[in-house]
């Protein structure tokens, strides 16, 4: 039956039109796939390494300190409320500085050590150290502390050499109990203190919030400002250009290294938008040409189709036949576009590897999912066009 139908219903004579539609559709699909692939490569770069992630997703913000802000660099409640409302900010935490004098000294004579120090406290949900000891109440004489890794590095790789002191590992440091003195209105109070963990997230010596609140209250230093001068935010993507722009507009600053992805991100955004946008426009046109091509074929075989139906061919039979005539070419185009995309991805993988940027050597699941979606869209377009024009013939 199909062999005979093929003889009767020949594709419309517009061969060039068909070739143009095929090329248009191929380019459109490649552009769309490329947009999706670039986006997923970027996402992969941003989110693949979970250790980087924990650093990257928390930013400590403070006012830019210059001659204009000198002396009043604290962050107001308004600033914090505004910050909370931004779409790219998930959570805001206030870093509370100590308003009292404090010092740390060692109990051991073998390791004499004494230094003036200041603390900061931050709500627990912003801390990436899990320790059972991380709490304090008024009856407790023990203060847990979290130190930045940077402090230990500074000691191990600079200070110890100059003072002829031994190097210390994290585990050793965690075993040392220090004497922590704080100055209150009623005189000096001493506690036992110990480092319970190290973190990269906040570059200051942290104590529990409960201790900080208690000590600040008893410090008697009512002159010192109550306003925080630093806040910590949690964000899904520190490379978000909106975030960088917001910081700039509000005179805020953070560790620039963490937002370095912002520039790449902007470039990626432009590439993805142009490629995706052009691809979608071309897809619409290609679909239109394909639809016209189907319409033209059916119109040019009008009398044959009429006679076939007169002789008893069912519209469903003819629709199925026409789908088989037109749809396979669409599938082939999709497959070819995917193959081209895979080759490009493989080449990009090799090239970027030389630049120490690691992306997958194969196209992403998302790209394949988009290809399947395209196959569905094309099928529906074919199906409804054919159904419409065959139905008219009755």
């Amino acid at each position: 039956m199909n062999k005979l139908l093929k003889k009767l219903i020949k594709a419309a004579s517009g061969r060039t039109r068909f070739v143009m539609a095929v090329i248009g559709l191929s380019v459109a699909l490649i552009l769309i796939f490329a947009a999706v692939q670039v986006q997923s490569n970027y996402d992969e770069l941003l989110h693949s390494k979970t250790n980087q992630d924990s650093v990257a997703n928390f930013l400590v913000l403070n006012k830019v300190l210059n001659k204009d802000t000198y002396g009043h660099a604290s962050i107001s409640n308004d600033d914090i409320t505004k910050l909370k409302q931004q779409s790219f900010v998930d959570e805001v935490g206030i870093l509370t500085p100590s308003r009292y004098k404090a010092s740390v000294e060692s109990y051991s004579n073998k390791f004499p050590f004494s230094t003036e120090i200041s603390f900061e406290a931050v709500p627990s949900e912003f801390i990436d150290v899990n320790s059972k000891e991380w709490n304090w109440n008024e009856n407790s004489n023990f203060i847990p502390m979290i130190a930045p890794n940077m402090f230990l590095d500074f000691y191990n790789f600079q200070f110890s050499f100059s003072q002829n002191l031994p190097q210390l590992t994290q585990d050793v440091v965690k075993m040392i109990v220090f004497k922590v003195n704080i100055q209150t209105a009623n005189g000096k109070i001493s506690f036992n203190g110990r480092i319970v963990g190290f973190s990269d997230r906040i570059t200051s010596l942290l104590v529990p919030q409960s201790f900080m609140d208690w000590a600040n209250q008893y410090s008697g230093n009512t002159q010192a400002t109550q306003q925080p001068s630093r806040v910590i935010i949690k964000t899904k993507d520190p490379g978000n250009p909106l975030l960088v722009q917001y910081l700039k507009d509000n005179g805020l600053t953070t560790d620039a290294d963490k937002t370095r992805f912002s520039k790449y991100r902007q470039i990626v955004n432009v590439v993805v938008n142009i490629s995706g946008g052009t691809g979608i426009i071309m897809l619409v046109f290609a679909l239109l040409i394909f639809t016209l091509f189907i319409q033209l074929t059916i119109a040019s075989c009008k009398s044959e189709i009429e006679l076939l139906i007169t002789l008893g061919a069912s519209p469903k039979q003819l629709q199925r036949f026409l789908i088989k005539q037109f749809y396979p070419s669409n599938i082939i185009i999709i497959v070819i576009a995917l193959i081209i995309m895979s080759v490009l991805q493989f080449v990009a993988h090799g090239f970027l590897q030389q630049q120490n940027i690691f992306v997958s050597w194969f196209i992403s699941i998302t790209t394949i999912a988009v290809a399947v979606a395209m196959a569905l869209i094309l099928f529906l377009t074919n199906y409804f066009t054919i159904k419409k024009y065959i139905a008219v013939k009755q």
Partner: protein
Amino acid sequence: MQPLLYIQLNMQLVLQNIIPVPLKEKLLQRSSSIWNKQLLFKKGEWIKINAPSGSGKTTFIHTLYKLRNDYEGTVQYDEKDIRQINANDLAVYRQQKISIVFQDLRLFPNITARENIELNRVMQTPLYEENKIDEMAEIVGVAGILQQRAGLCSYGEQQRIAIIRALIQPFDWLLMDEPFSHLDKDNIAKAAALIAAECTKRNAGFILTDLDEDAHFNYSRKLLL
């Protein structure tokens, strides 16, 4: 009683006061045993309809084949008004229940005679093997032109191709509109014998329209249009 009744009703044609709207006034002035009458054609009846020129012969055949809807009254297959039959069910009727030889033949001119017949054979689950085409073509004398493009065959040859095309498929009713108009006596006899044999084999009825009286078949009924 029920099953028997069902068998009797199977594929019978009922015409109730049908009259084509464009020809209504003209036809009502004539005496006709079909237009505006109630008729029941039972399965297996061989019906000859004598139809003088201008009496609406082709209109009648086309109405029964549901090619036109501009008539009053109703035509029923199996007690079902054919106006209610949808496109896909209609295809099933045309593939399995009702076959036709058009007056204007309606072959595809650009494919061969054999392909024209083959198309009707494979449109549904084939009733006959492919070699039945050769067998029938041999009987009516067109075996030699099966490989020719239908458009290049003479009208008489095309007429016989159209007859074979109608006979290659399953049917309960065969509609024929002046099927022998371009055949000589000898060929008419051969074609009529083949049609009679095929109808008998299927226990099928036919409705044949022609201008004049004839004795090509052993008709069970003769009507005047």
